[in-house]
């Protein structure tokens, strides 16, 4: 491969970095919206994090939700919320009350008072307030720890500027994911937290592939401005980025449509995360690298790595 060869292809390829200002503004708008919603609406935390009691009941025929709620309140339950879960015949009953060993059967009993209903207990969950709080703390610490470790790893493997760029890209993804869950008021539970962490892993994967190419190209192309080099690198990895995102999105769509209600939010989180992650590895990470004035001096080849020279045919 010759240098001319590559540089001549710049003209044929997409000039990603031309749009970097617009992308930057878009990212900032999304982040501001997300943080705003997180501040105002907050996350609708699921049972795992709030603590409380939840009973899932399967009905033979779809019940009238409002009537069901009234019936439960009349039976003496306080602060009852009733919602469909997945299908019209599945109902999730949430109670603010503390722990009682028989709550599942009590709710079932109260529902059975109305003889029109044929019901079955699907699951009953109780999470103590303190456990919820601990899970919340653990989740937060986990996320921060993941970001910190990634930063250290990238700083060691690449260079400090790359590490700032990739962590910024990850934070960008995480904030937008959380923001979306806040705006849509979707339940944020442990599985969604798992999805957020998985997206950190996934988006990082993408960012590293791009960074790897940027580093390689800085080392072997002696001409071209940093912007051009970033553009070349993005173009070279574009095919791979799109295909991988596409295959991942395909399986996620399978999960979303066929995986069942319990992992519905998990699938949504990952779908959003993969989309945003793909975007961020093109625009956010590369953009920040340029903003930090990345150049050849940052990436002097250590003498032991002689691969660039050897590769010439």
């Amino acid at each position, binding site marked *: *491969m010759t240098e001319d*060869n*590559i540089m001549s292809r710049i003209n044929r390829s997409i000039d990603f970095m031309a749009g970097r200002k617009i992308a930057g503004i878009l990212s900032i708008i999304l982040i501001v919206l997300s943080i705003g919603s997180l501040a105002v609406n907050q996350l609708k935390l699921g049972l795992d994090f709030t*603590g409380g009691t939840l009973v*899932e009941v*399967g009905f033979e025929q779809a019940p009238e939700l409002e009537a069901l709620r009234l019936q439960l309140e009349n039976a003496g339950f306080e602060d009852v919320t009733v919602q469909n879960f997945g299908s019209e015949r599945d109902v999730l009953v949430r109670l*603010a009350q*503390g*722990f009682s*060993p028989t709550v599942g059967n009590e709710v079932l009993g109260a529902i059975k008072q109305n003889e029109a209903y044929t019901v079955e*207990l*699907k*699951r*009953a*969950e*109780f*999470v*103590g307030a*303190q*456990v919820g709080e601990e899970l919340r703390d*653990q989740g937060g610490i*986990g996320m921060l*720890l*993941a970001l910190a*470790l*990634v930063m250290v790893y*990238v700083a060691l493997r690449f260079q400090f500027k790359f590490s700032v760029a990739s962590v910024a890209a990850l934070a960008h993804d995480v904030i937008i994911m959380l923001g979306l869950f806040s705006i849509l008021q979707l339940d944020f539970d*442990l*599985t969604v*937290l*798992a999805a957020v*962490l*998985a997206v950190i*892993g*996934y988006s990082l*994967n993408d960012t*590293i*592939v791009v960074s*790897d*190419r940027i580093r390689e190209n800085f080392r072997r192309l002696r001409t071209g401005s940093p912007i051009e080099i970033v553009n070349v690198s993005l173009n*070279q*990895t574009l*095919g*791979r980025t799109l*295909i*991988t995102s*596409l*295959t*991942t*999105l*395909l399986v*996620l769509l*399978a*999960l979303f*449509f*066929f*995986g*069942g209600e319990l992992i519905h939010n*998990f699938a949504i989180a*990952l779908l959003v995360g993969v989309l945003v992650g793909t975007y961020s590895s093109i625009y956010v990470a590369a953009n920040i690298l340029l903003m930090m004035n990345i150049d050849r001096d940052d990436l002097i080849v250590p003498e032991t790595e002689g691969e660039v020279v050897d590769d010439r045919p």
Partner: protein
Amino acid sequence: MINKYPLWKYLLIITVVVMGFIYALPNLYPDDPAVQLTGQRGSVQLTDTELNKAAKALDRAGISYFGQSVENNSGLIRFKSDADQLKAKTVIQQALGDNYVVALNLAPTTPQWLVDIGAGPMKLGLDLRGGVHFLMEVDMKEAIAQRNEVYISEIKTLLRTERLRYRRITRDDGVISIRFKDEELREKATFLLRNEFADFTQVEREADNSFYLDLQLSEEAVRNIEDYAVKQNLTTLRNRVNELGVSEPIVQRQGRNRIVIELPGVQDTAAAKRVLGATANLEFRLEARSDSNTLDTEEYPFRNNPNRLATLERDIIITGNSVSNAQSAFDENGVPQVNIDLDSQGGKLMNRATRNNIRRRMAVLFVEHKIKTTVVEHAGEKVEKRTPYVEKHIISLATIQSALGNSFRITGLDAPGEASELALLLRAGSLAAPIYFVEERTIGPSLGKENIELGVTSVQIGMALVVIFMLAFYKVFGIIANLALTANLVMLAALMSMMSATLTLPGIAGIVLTLGMAVDANVLIFSRIKEELNNGMSPQMAIHAGFERAFVTIFDANLTTLLVAVILFAVGTGPVKGFAVTLSLGILTSMFTAIMVTRALVNVVYGGRQLKKLSI
């Protein structure tokens, strides 16, 4: 020669893949619904006789069964359907009586040759097979308080035998204060207790013309007590779970003061919780003499008549913890009773106490630790407040006719059910410290089945989509990538089976996600090959360069994802841990299949040939 592996490398790869296939195989054999029969205690044998009895009962009830066997003192009977299994449980329990535990079980159908090489199917998590998950917290403060109570009793005895007169011993928030009349007595006591009760730190102080010795447990001693309390509770809970008759239960310590219990297949959670959480215990105490110091006595109501009170000595002779065996029975008048056997230490204590107190009356106190949960408004938020309290009732107060030994009986219980539950609790051991439920999840069996079906469907569809896509996009190389992807799925299943990891619903999601991400390594390699071809490299050179150059990227990218998966494992619980496990194992297997297996296949197809172009 470029793009050729040495023979040993091919053989190695083939061996690994074949091994993976063999060890993944047991997952294709679905489990049979079954019931498991065991004796209630170690001493009750389960033999062919009981199995035949059960079989006959099933015949009479018209339930079809097969594959009954006895092994290691436990019997197994298999059924065609879940409905049969449920009906059979009731029938067999009636036929065998209370001395046997009849538990629902899933019996693996792994062929013998696979069992012989140590292969077995993956375990299914509760969300896939139904059951209950409990998280219980041990009340450490109460554990310390209880221990201090025992210490106080011992200290009193010691001071009395050494004839060191004290005025009063009180306990306040972990500090035991002994009050003395003068300094000399306190000096002697301090010296004595320093040797005998080394676990305490001693502080001397003077107030109100009296001399106090304050004893506080050292931090190490507190930790030991806490540790002991959790371990003791673990043992007790294990015993209780065994008495419940659940197959493959999990009873594990989690963190400093929590215990996780998972009972697969259990549906009657109320009964399970009553037995697990029950804190009933017994205390044996002498009735106070009429001239006793009121500070040394306590007054308790009777259980069957709360208005009737009796004054008992504060000192406890023994508690239910000294019970080695207990059986419920009826006396000659048909009144329920519990026959109790004490361990040797308890027997000695009981004998000593009763020998010297014939004609006095001894009370049996029924002790229950309960927790009142109230919701209080605190700073505008509703906060749960848990207040533990203890209920003690006298269940019998009888005159000691003669010195008691290791076995005796107690009466005064309301109903046969209560007697048998008390016997169970005494047998299984009491809880060293009260515990309460902090988390509970029940998953119905139908939901479990549904989850498996959904999970399997999404894996199949996800896999199909990726396979079609790769085929359309990369042609021959696509076929190769798909073979590698299949190998990846098989190896992932094999690895999880070998580690007997638990598969959960998020775990299945992890597999699906791994499928999508596993092709990433192949995509990286193939894009690189395409690129090198476009740059004018020869096909063989392009293949070589593609694999070489993509490797660093794949390695970096996967390692960081692995890093995140490990964190996920550390902070997650239950199902999320399952996700972390499949994700990290998936990364490892995909590194192997996407790099080694793909390379081997590409070498076999294209290696060592003159190539004009590649189908990529």
